[in-house]
């Protein structure tokens, strides 16, 4: 079938091109710069009006019978200002026209290859637009990102969802929120990004470290959240989304309003609130899994052609209850939980958020100024401020349950500046500088030893990226970045631990205060890291139906505070985690290929990659220590050489005007090359298929049936043996054994109604896990204790006005 379509396509286009006197063809597509959605109904015509076409629903157009000459085309679209473009037509010429809604860029309508419009030229990328994000209005950013092939998540229950790209998460994944790199303690496994998914207009994932403008240490990848478009006219518009969520017996509301002016002034406000009680697995209530989340943002500024500025303030506040049964005392409690098959604490449904729970608050402020220099390029200067506060409440004795066990405050100031030379059609340059200061304060009033110490951190970075257009088909890119990081920490070590680690031999000069009276030492490590990153890539696009991309990225990442300084008992995991002061930066070499074919009725993308990481920092079980509470496995950080190999495949077929299907497959294999064993926490292969039916006549009726099959992870490190005081014998702790494969079905459907004027109502129904299947996911840290969520029904009303 596919082959047939392919051949038909070529025969047809071939025939057409020979039937004209002037036989050149212009193939093009018109897309939205920000969310990459195709723009239909754009009119492309020659100035004399002899040729005139309209872009189709995929934004595509073809103009036949052109001569080899330079034509001036007028491109107009109802939502954009009309633009004139000079295009050299020669043989079969393709162009991609990216129309920019943003006021600041209105004059920039450029031909394909125009540099720096995508996040990168040659890396693997995927974008979720506003419409796709709105579906997840009552969920988390991590849930939304899982729609992208190759993106998975490390969960702690259903509410703490930490995105992972190509098997890597945490500090290896950068998150850019409106141009600001999130600094929200991404080092912890149970720390999700402090972002409200409703505050983003679109989200792009770069699967690798190639977007050097954002940082050189994104060994996993970069997640770029961008704001919504603001139209240049005197308008007032907004939307409100209300969700009712069956599982958790709650819901959410999100509202946003934008006012813009002809002169370029604009202001946007957005706020959302989400509340859920205890969620439910198919057979029982998951006690203490409620959530309370509030997010809001204000964005305003002025955009003129020559210069502009904008200010953004975003607030995020979440209180998340953590499954009561996942709080355990020692290794025997963990063994009991694993063997029991169901949670050891099951209570009646409640909206109360009990302990253990976490409370996080994030303030983000940004001020940005830009200026365009005619015939040269654009310069911008940005300052941003972030304050992140994290409380973790444990089940405690005495009257201490209202006192946090962990109380950290992370404050970050960043100043950055970029210059883009984009006046030259063939060569574009992007350079930038960045300085960052960060302070972490660990409140001693918790009555619990600090897991992460007080520290100050300084970053200085600079980068250059060049893109060069070679002939009609090739765009080459290359970049270099240097980052200096200094971390200056003050930490108390127990003398027994200091000596057991051998630090008394290597780091005794770091001791600044001897507190033998309490068995501790105050230590002041000051470590410097010099990191270099490079990318090289090429994009080849021969005809309008696809492209081939090659990308190599070298990136280095300095160890994070958890990797360096962790030292203590981690209750939810019943393990003692030990950082290592001796850790060095890790270095990744990643090669990624992308083959995309996009025909009218079907298309596919195949993205194989190989990531070789030297000095990969890994946390793994290394032994057992005894305390008065019993035995605990010790997990230590270690460096090794690792290899990740994988492939992401996605495709679509439009069977007819009404029915289409989507297919996705992702596979990644991780190996510790030094020990020749599999890496821990690598996502299992998954295969997703969906079939959609669309009937625009029936109020834009759409229905979509989803199937997601997750294979069992068969490659995992060996389990560990621990001494069980209960039985007074050594037992195998099945901490690494993955759960079985599972298959989930889901359904989405939607209807649109016009309420007169500009007002639109969209109603949608989403059902997840239709069959109420019992399952556990390998990358959910609560898989030892409870099944994952049962059926969930979400009813959504959206009003655009």
């Amino acid at each position, binding site marked *: 079938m596919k082959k047939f379509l392919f051949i038909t396509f070529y025969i047809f286009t071939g025939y057409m091109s020979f039937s004209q006197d002037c036989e050149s063809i212009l193939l093009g597509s018109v897309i939205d710069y920000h969310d990459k959605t195709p723009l239909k109904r754009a009119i492309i015509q020659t100035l004399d009006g002899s040729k005139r076409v309209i872009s189709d629903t995929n934004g595509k157009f073809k103009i036949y019978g052109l001569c080899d000459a330079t034509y001036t085309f007028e491109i107009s679209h109802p939502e954009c200002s009309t633009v004139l473009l000079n295009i050299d037509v020669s043989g079969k010429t393709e162009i991609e026209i990216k129309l920019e809604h943003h006021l600041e860029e209105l004059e920039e309508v450029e031909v394909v290859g125009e540099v720096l419009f995508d996040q990168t030229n040659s890396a693997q990328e995927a974008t979720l637009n506003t419409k796709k994000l709105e579906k997840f209005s009552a969920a988390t950013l991590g849930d939304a990102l899982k729609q992208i092939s190759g993106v998975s998540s490390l969960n702690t229950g259903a509410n703490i969802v930490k995105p992972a790209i190509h098997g890597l998460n945490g500090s290896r994944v950068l998150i850019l929120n409106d141009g600001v790199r999130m600094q929200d303690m991404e080092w912890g496994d149970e720390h999700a990004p402090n972002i409200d998914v409703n505050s983003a207009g679109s989200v792009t994932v770069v699967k690798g470290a190639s977007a050097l403008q954002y940082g050189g240490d994104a060994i996993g990848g970069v997640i770029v959240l961008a704001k919504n478009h603001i139209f240049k006219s005197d308008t007032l518009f907004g939307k409100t989304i209300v969700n009712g969520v069956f599982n958790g017996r709650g819901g959410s509301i999100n509202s946003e309003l934008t006012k813009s002016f002809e002169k370029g002034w604009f202001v946007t406000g957005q706020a959302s609130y989400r509340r859920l009680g205890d969620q439910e697995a198919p057979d029982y209530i998951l006690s203490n899994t409620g959530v309370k989340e509030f997010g809001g943002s204000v964005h305003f500024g002025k955009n003129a052609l020559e210069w502009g500025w904008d200010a953004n303030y975003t607030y995020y506040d979440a209180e998340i209850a953590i499954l009561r049964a996942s709080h355990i005392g020692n290794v025997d409690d963990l063994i009991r939980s694993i063997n029991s098959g169901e949670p050891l604490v099951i209570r009646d449904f409640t909206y109360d958020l009990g302990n253990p729970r976490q409370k996080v608050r994030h303030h983000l402020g940004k001020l940005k100024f830009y200026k365009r220099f005619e015939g040269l390029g654009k*310069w911008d200067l940005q300052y941003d401020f972030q304050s992140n506060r994290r409380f973790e409440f444990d089940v405690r004795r005495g009257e201490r349950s209202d006192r946090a066990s962990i109380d950290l405050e992370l404050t970050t100031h960043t*100043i950055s500046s970029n210059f883009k030379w984009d006046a030259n059609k063939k060569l574009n340059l992007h350079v930038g500088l960045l300085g960052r*200061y960060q302070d972490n304060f660990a409140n001693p009033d918790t009555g619990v030893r600090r897991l992460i110490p007080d520290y100050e951190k300084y970053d200085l970075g600079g980068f250059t990226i060049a893109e060069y257009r070679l002939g009609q088909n090739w765009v080459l890119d290359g970049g270099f970045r240097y980052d200096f990081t200094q971390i200056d920490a003050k930490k*108390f070590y127990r003398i027994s631990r200091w000596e057991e680690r051998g630090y008394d031999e290597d780091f005794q000069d770091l001791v600044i205060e001897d507190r033998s009276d309490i068995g501790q030492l105050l230590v002041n490590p000051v470590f410097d890291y010099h990191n270099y990153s490079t990318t090289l890539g090429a994009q080849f696009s021969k005809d309008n139906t696809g492209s081939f991309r090659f990308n190599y990225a070298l990136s280095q990442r300095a160890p994070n505070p958890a990797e360096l300084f962790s030292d203590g*008992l981690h209750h939810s995991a019943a393990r003692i985690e030990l950082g290592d002061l001796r850790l060095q930066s890790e270095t990744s070499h990643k090669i990624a290929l992308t083959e995309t074919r996009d025909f009218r009725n079907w298309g596919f993308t195949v993205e194989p990659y190989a990531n070789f990481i030297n000095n990969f920092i890994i946390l793994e079980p290394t032994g057992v220590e005894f305390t008065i509470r019993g035995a605990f496995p010790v997990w230590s950080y270690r460096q090794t050489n690792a290899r990740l190999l994988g492939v992401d495949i996605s495709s679509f077929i439009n069977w007819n005007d009404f029915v289409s299907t989507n297919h996705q497959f992702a596979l990644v294999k991780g190996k510790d090359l030094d020990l020749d064993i599999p890496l821990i926490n690598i996502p299992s292969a998954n295969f997703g298929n969906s079939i959609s039916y669309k009937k625009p006549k029936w109020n834009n009726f759409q229905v979509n049936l989803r199937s997601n099959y997750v294979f069992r992870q068969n490659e995992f490190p060996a389990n560990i043996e621990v001494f069980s005081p209960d039985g007074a014998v050594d037992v195998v702790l099945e901490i690494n054994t993955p759960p079985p494969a599972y298959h989930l079905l889901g359904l989405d459907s939607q209807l649109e109604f016009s309420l007169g004027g500009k007002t639109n109502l969209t109603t949608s129904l989403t059902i997840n896990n239709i069959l109420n299947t019992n399952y556990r996911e390998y990358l959910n840290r609560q898989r030892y204790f409870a099944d994952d969520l049962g059926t969930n029904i979400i009813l959504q009303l959206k009003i655009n006005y």
Partner: protein
Amino acid sequence: MKTIKYLSILLTSGLLFFSCSDDDNGGNPAPVNEEEVITTLNITLTPSGGGTAVTFSYQDLDADGPNPPVVSAPDLAGNTTYNATIEVLNETESPAEDITAEVQAEDDEHQFIFEIGGSVASATATDTDGDGNPVGLSFDLVTNTAGAGTLTVTLRHEPTKPNDGTLTGAGGETDIAAPFTFTIN
């Protein structure tokens, strides 16, 4: 020219920013006063017919540090009933904090579970909480004839109450797990 001017403004502002943020290196952080840590379990065993008391202890002064607990369990006499009392301490503080009182105050949320082996005949709690369920801060230990004996004392926080006196039945989280092996003469 204008460009260079702008770029130099940027660089200068960057430097200013860095020079003014590096000055608060002064104060050192204070050590955390660890209130909740349990380091020591002492059991005083007094023969019910009178005689010298024997003390078992289980002490882990560096808490979740690398050093293992130090155990002391002197010999017991055979065919004897001992009235035992438990003391729980936090010795990271000076003077040591008595956690026993905290357990006592929250006795409905705590329970000591006793597991026996060898020549130990029984170990039974003799105190109760407000609901009449056993707590175990005091208990009776009965020995058989001479031989080796074992006693494992486990303190569970938030157990299911009432329960059958086993670890599985009690549930909750382990705050103390102290195994003793000793000789009965």
